[in-house]
């Protein structure tokens, strides 16, 4: 359920970082989510769409970059790809490990429609159509 709070934080970050004149051009908000971040991707997408549905960001959605969980062992130096959440090195069994990826929860960037495409933004067209329309 905390995905709702996170979706609100993501929308706030977009508001703070995108000029107000560009807000209704936002198509995708790109978010990095680690396997170990405790976030349910579908729930986050749903929450984001619900939160922005009556705002200038209503035409935008989330694009997720999923980052797998990885461990580095400080005893044997190997990188482990073992089961989610296990902090034991699968090579040597040591507990002296550190997480090298999988904790990410970060807004990376936003992708905007070009102003030309924006004229047609109410239509849910495919990218090939976008190209045709914008070159008319």
């Amino acid at each position, binding site marked *: *359920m*905390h995905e709702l*709070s*996170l979706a609100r*934080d*993501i929308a*706030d*970050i*977009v508001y703070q*970082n*995108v000029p107000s004149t*560009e807000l209704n*051009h936002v*198509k995708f908000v790109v*978010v990095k989510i680690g396997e*170990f*971040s*405790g976030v349910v991707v579908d729930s986050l997408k749903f929450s984001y769409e619900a939160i922005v549905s009556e705002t200038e960001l209503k035409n935008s959605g989330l694009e997720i970059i999923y980052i797998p969980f990885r461990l580095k062992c400080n005893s044997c130096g190997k990188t482990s790809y073992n089961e*989610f*959440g*296990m*902090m*034991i090195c699968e090579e040597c069994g040591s*507990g*002296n490990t550190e997480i090298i990826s999988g904790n990410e*929860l*970060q*807004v*990376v*960037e*936003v*992708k*905007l*429609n*070009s102003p030309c495409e924006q004229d047609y933004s109410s239509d849910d067209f495919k990218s090939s159509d976008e190209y045709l329309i914008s070159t008319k």
Partner: protein
Amino acid sequence: MDVITIERKVLQKNDEIASANRALFKKNGLFTINIVSSPGSGKTSLVEKTIEHLSGKLKISVIEGDVQTDLDAKRVSNYNVPVVQIITNGACHLEANLVKDALENIELKGRDLLIIENVGNLVCPAGYDLGEDLKVVIISVTEGDDKPLKYPKMFMNSKVLVINKIDLLPYVNCNIKVLRENALKINPGLTVFETSCTSGEGIDKWCGFLIENKNPDPGHSGEGFH
């Protein structure tokens, strides 16, 4: 498609407020714990037993977090310690700004220990720093020995594990050795206590840990503890 680069942690705002809370705790010489668990593991009972046991030894303040009602704050106020209730009205976890607001209504000066009892939930509170020195995860033996494997993030992000309701071990299908092993597979650095709030077993060791850790050294980052 034009791109605007942002590169910002989603929880940055929460983390900034948590850092300010932490600085305030440190300024007041407070050792602060954030107690997390699923509903019904015995968080409030452990808070009550802790206050009882540390009476005359540590000055304690308590922040209670619940989705609804001030029942827990009423329970704790019977022990004559400053307590404030946060009602989240549906939210499944405490956030740093809720704690910040609660701090305006609770005595910090001259206190040794601040206990924050989070909303009962073994998932969501794991990701939210409130400014505490450490998270304490409680699991009761009635929940079963596989819970650390099912909810790894909470055990990963906690420094202390309290296995509660050990008086019920003869009646439930829970192997406490397996429970410990599972928790330590997730987080080998966990300090583990076994308690019963009914019989009082193990409460002295748990409280001894709190006494040892009061008044963190200057420069304490929240990472190290005895």
